[in-house]
């Protein structure tokens, strides 16, 4: 079972299963216009062999969080606070040398667009072999054999000859397979997949998702799966974290969050999603307004300017007090549990049919 039980800001010892544990992470960029709070007090855990889904709009801090885990942010303009504990070791304070040894080895990453994420100047085989040589000390020959083995595993036909191809000779789906082969070449314990299927068409997307699930079963890899596609996440993840404006607004198991969402933002996300078998005459319900500026986030609950239910909360708590995210299955909202229940049943659920 996933232990999504820690409250924000709490520095609890990580459980025996918790491989990665992020505690009260705050990431700020200094820009010419001011300070951007890209991530503001985020906590989550990932276990070996499980998948944590992170959903949210563009600019909600999903990608930044995960780049920060690997230390891939620009150190000059970024300040990182909080803890990122990998097997108990804090990565925020770890020196670059130590991070280098972790990247591609214990923690690997798959990026969104395999066209731009692979170097056009080197063969696919070399790009897969490189981290293997670096982290295991394998010879060129061994690394090449390993690259062929990995290409076979991810389902590239004729891997012996394809290993010497350049990325531009691969199709989009094959490039993403090569990217996955590259990420898994050192058997990482944690794989961060940053929208790995967004740039692919639907049939290829399904293949890639199946591949990731198969490989996860084989290697027991923990996965952080970042996406804004709720359909994909319901298929992939065990647990789900909904992010808004650099904060977690709701968390729980995928089933709980998608079946009985408790946060108005999650309601909005689900209502704005088209469904097969839905009444075609019924319009989609997009969330009004636009994502908040991270330079100057709204006071109180960051979602309050777009929330339809602020009137249900007594006083002006929504615009003055930031709701905290409780333990375990929780949503950061000032509505009471009963209010959430009745609004969901009366207003939201009919829209989801």
């Amino acid at each position: 079972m996933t232990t999504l039980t820690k409250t924000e800001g709490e520095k609890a010892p990580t459980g025996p299963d918790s491989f990665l544990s992020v505690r009260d992470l705050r990431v700020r960029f200094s820009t010419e216009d001011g300070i951007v709070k890209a991530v503001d007090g985020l906590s989550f855990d990932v276990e070996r062999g499980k998948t944590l889904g992170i959903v949210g709009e563009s600019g909600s801090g999903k990608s930044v969080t995960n780049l920060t885990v690997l230390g891939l942010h620009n150190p000059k303009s970024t300040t990182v606070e909080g803890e990122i504990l990998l097997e108990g070791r804090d990565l925020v304070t770890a020196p670059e040398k130590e991070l280098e040894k972790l990247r591609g080895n214990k923690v690997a990453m798959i990026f969104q667009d395999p066209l731009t994420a692979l170097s056009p100047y080197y063969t696919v085989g070399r790009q897969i072999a490189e981290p293997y040589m670096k982290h295991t000390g394998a010879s060129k020959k061994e690394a090449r054999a390993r690259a062929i083995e990995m290409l076979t595993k991810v389902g590239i036909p004729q891997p012996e000859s394809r290993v010497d191809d350049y990325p531009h000779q691969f199709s989009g789906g094959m490039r993403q397979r090569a990217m996955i082969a590259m990420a898994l070449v050192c058997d990482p314990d944690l794989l961060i997949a940053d929208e790995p299927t967004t740039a692919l068409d639907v049939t290829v997307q399904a293949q890639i998702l199946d591949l990731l699930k198969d490989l996860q079963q084989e290697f027991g890899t923990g996965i952080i799966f970042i996406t804004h596609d709720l359909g994909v996440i319901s298929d992939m993840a065990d647990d789900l974290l909904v992010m808004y404006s650099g904060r977690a607004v709701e968390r729980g198991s995928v089933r709980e969050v998608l079946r009985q969402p408790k946060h108005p933002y999650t309601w909005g996300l689900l209502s704005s999603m088209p469904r097969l078998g839905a009444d075609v005459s019924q319009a989609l319900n997009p969330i009004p307004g636009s994502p908040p500026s991270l330079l100057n986030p709204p006071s109180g609950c960051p979602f309050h300017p777009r929330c339809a239910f602020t009137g249900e909360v007594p006083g002006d708590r929504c615009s003055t007090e930031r709701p905290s995210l409780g333990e375990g299955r929780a949503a950061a909202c000032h509505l009471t549990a009963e209010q959430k229940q009745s609004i969901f049943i009366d207003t939201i659920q009919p829209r989801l049919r």
Partner: protein
Amino acid sequence: MLQFLIRRLIGAVVIMFLIGAFTFFLFYTVPQDFAALSCGKNCSPENLAVIRENLGLDKPITTQFWEFMTGIVAGRDFATGHCAAPCLGQSFSTGEFVWDSILDRFPLTLSLTVGGLVIFLIVGLGAGLLAAWKRGTVADRAVSGASIVLSSFQIYFLGPIVLGIVVYQTGWLDNPKYHPFTENPLTWAAGMLIPWVVMATIFTAQYTRMSRSTMIEQLQEEHVRTARAKGMKQSYVFFRYAWRGSLIPIVTILGIDLSALLSGAVVTEFTFDLAGIGRLAVDSSLTKDLPVTMGVMLFGAFFILLLNILVDLVYAYIDPRVRLS
């Protein structure tokens, strides 16, 4: 690849022919009796007729052009002897075979060009890389500032200043002079050092700025980030991934700059009073010595075309997408 080379070579031949034709006929639009120029003062009509015949000036212009062009491939016979292929004709004023005078002066121009090129590439790209690596630091600002100042200099301005200080004031170096490389590489380098540095300075600044900006651009590329995400060392990512990509625009600009480099060599030759090809070209057009001008034009064009093909090959080497398409 081979097909590409053949296509480029055929293209080069066509371009050379067009340049030759253009130069030739342009020259004849100038109303001028070349034989009279060659004969000098107190020229008797008989002498004039002989010279005219010797130089082939009594034939129609098209025939002269044809003879000139075939001479390049097959060689020609003049009254003074056989001119072996590639024959670029015979100078009107000195009677020397043009090919010989070009070969005579070419080593100097080649030394000047290649030396300047090597210096500005090493210094320019190196400084640009340093600035990109240390972006935002004092080193970056110093390099960027210096490159703006230096790029506003001109060879004929900077040349005399350097000469004045290094040669006349302090006597650290002798006046620039060409010594063949085969004789003594050290004196060769010492003789060319000042022209190299002055010429390179003008180009260095531009390449510094370019390599800095393309490098900074490349460092933000996603595939560079992927390389870091794989755990590759920062210096490895910098040189193997980012630099490789940033070389592409640099090589492209270099291909365009090659002709500027040759004209830079001409100005440099004049500035330091060196007798190279550029000198030959200017002198010959002042004395209306058609074969020499033609020869130098064609030779220069050939040289630039050759270097351009070389640049394309380098380009294909750097970027596999070019190689295979």
